[in-house]
């Protein structure tokens, strides 16, 4: 499927944007957080305040960078732990994610969305790309592959417009937690209602699932 990657403009060497001035680490971190929120023009206040509570990352390292990657991985975990805790405290728990290999380059889990008081759950997976964190992870919902055109091959959700520019502006401060909060969550909120109302996605109770599964999902939706 054709994709555009052409948002790249050539500029002579000496035009890199660097943050000058902020001397203290605390001031720098605060400035970074403020910049991250500022770059989110057009987002709702709730999402903005949640993003403000996810710790920003600082190590610019990808999966091939050895010890620096281990450091980055720690920061990823810290951000994910805070984000999950914040969600739970606000009764807005909506995903489970864990590393699927010891190197932390593949992540798997589930995410769910409640529509008309019914919970729709989807397996969730992605690889950390080689050029991470300059390149955002491509989040996949394999069970929805082919059911919506807001997706690339293999069930990769479309992040091109609403998330990739935000990620690029905040590199390397955003991590997996931010990708879930600002990439996957809005996608689910926009697409799941359409998929359900158009009949592309059926609730598992309506597919003749075993009784215990239906009961389990009922209790999960109530909790």
């Amino acid at each position, binding site marked *: 499927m054709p994709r555009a990657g052409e948002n790249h403009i050539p500029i002579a060497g000496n035009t890199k*944007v660097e943050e000058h001035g902020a001397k203290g680490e605390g001031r720098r971190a605060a400035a970074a957080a403020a910049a991250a929120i500022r770059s989110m023009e057009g987002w709702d206040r709730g999402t903005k305040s949640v993003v403000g509570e996810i710790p920003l990352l600082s190590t610019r390292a990808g999966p091939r960078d050895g010890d620096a990657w281990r450091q980055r991985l720690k920061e990823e975990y810290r951000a994910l732990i805070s984000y999950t805790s914040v969600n739970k405290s606000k009764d807005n728990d909506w995903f489970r994610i864990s590393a699927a290999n010891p190197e932390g380059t593949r992540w798997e889990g589930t995410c769910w969305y409640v529509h008309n008081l019914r919970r729709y759950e989807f397996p969730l997976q992605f690889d950390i790309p080689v050029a991470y964190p300059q390149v955002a992870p491509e989040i996949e919902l394999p069970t929805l592959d082919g059911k919506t055109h807001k997706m690339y091959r293999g069930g990769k959700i479309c992040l091109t417009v609403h998330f990739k520019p935000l990620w690029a502006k905040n590199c390397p401060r955003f991590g997996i937690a931010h990708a879930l909060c600002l990439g996957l969550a809005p996608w689910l909120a926009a697409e799941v209602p359409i998929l359900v109302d158009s009949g592309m996605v059926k609730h598992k109770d309506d597919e003749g699932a075993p009784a215990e599964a239906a009961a389990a999902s009922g209790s999960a939706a109530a909790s």
Partner: protein
Amino acid sequence: MEEELRALLRDLDALKQSADPTAIDRMRERVAGMVSPAAAAAAAVGAARSKIKDMSAEVVDSNPYSRLMALQRMGIVDNYERIRDYSVAIVGIGGVGSVAAEMLTRCGIGRLLLYDYDTVELANMNRLFFRPDQVGMTKTDAAVQTLSGINPDVVLESYSLNITTVKGFETFLGSLKAKSAHGCNTGVDLVLSCVDNYEARMVVNQACNELGQTWMESGVSEDAVSGHIQLLVPGETACFACAPPLVVASGVDERTLKREGVCAASLPTTMGVVAGLLIQNALKYLLKFGQVSPYLGYNSLKDYFPTMEMKPNPQCSNPACVQRQKEYMQSKPARDAAAKAKMEAEASAADECPVHVDNEWNISVLDDSDTATSSILSTAADSLPEGLVRELPTADSYQEPIAPVTSGAIDDDLEELQRQLDALNSS
């Protein structure tokens, strides 16, 4: 053919019922008429040529290389047959990559490495190269099928993998470094990026920066009416990460750049033009003729072809790029000496035969090359022509990236953090 046979069957059934004696003769004529086209079709299937050991310049209808070897006699290329020593890797076998691969195959390139993880779909049929009967095959296998039929002399290697994953990247790097099966050349001579997304371009950029491998990038815009090609020599020209993406550099709202919806437009024409520009540049680079373009844009709406050069960013975020830049700077004296020697050789060659013997009007050409080049060299680095200003301020000094101060902040080890997340997950 199938249609005709069905008609024949129908008529035979009709013949069984009727008692017309001339009908049998007519039927015989028809069948006889069908025999010769069928024989010709069978012959065409079997006509795939065998391998040719040496490229011949002989002008005969049966020589697939006669028109290419004629480039030598036309004085364009010194030694065309050298093309057989070259290996080219093409990443992305889509609208541009597949056509590029066919062009190089028909030119008789020595070895082609093809990378793609996708399969052929009916939605690809508005572009060139792939056929509807190849739907469902991986793009690399379908390409090998077609290309090996066109020119069996080309060594084709197909890699059906996603280079952006860690595992795919290792295979990609390994294959770029590996020796060709029968040749003595190590690695590849040129990498062509024909991918359709930023992620994959960054991966090709990373691999080529690490290997110091010259590559060419190509792209067609989402609205299918413009495109570009770009030469990237690690350390010498800007790498793909040297300039920040437009949304980062300018702060422009991305909604002004994108239209709603995921599906991008594409035209066989624009893709064919860009593939042609890319392979023309690649041939010029490999066979050393003409000028290799550092960047060539194509705007089809106005038929505008801008060109420009880009210097590498000394503060590039890609460490491999910065390392290559350092090496390039260190090799400057050697390059200067080589360039000077070449200039002198050319100058002495020029001295031997004056262009004009008589000079009736006493016209003399003033040598301004020294002053012009030195002034360009000194000004291009830090000042701009009158009336132009830089949009962004110059950084006075390179700011070292801040060392991660968080080693104290995150005192837990990885396992402890994993346990904490697992505990949250299970609660």
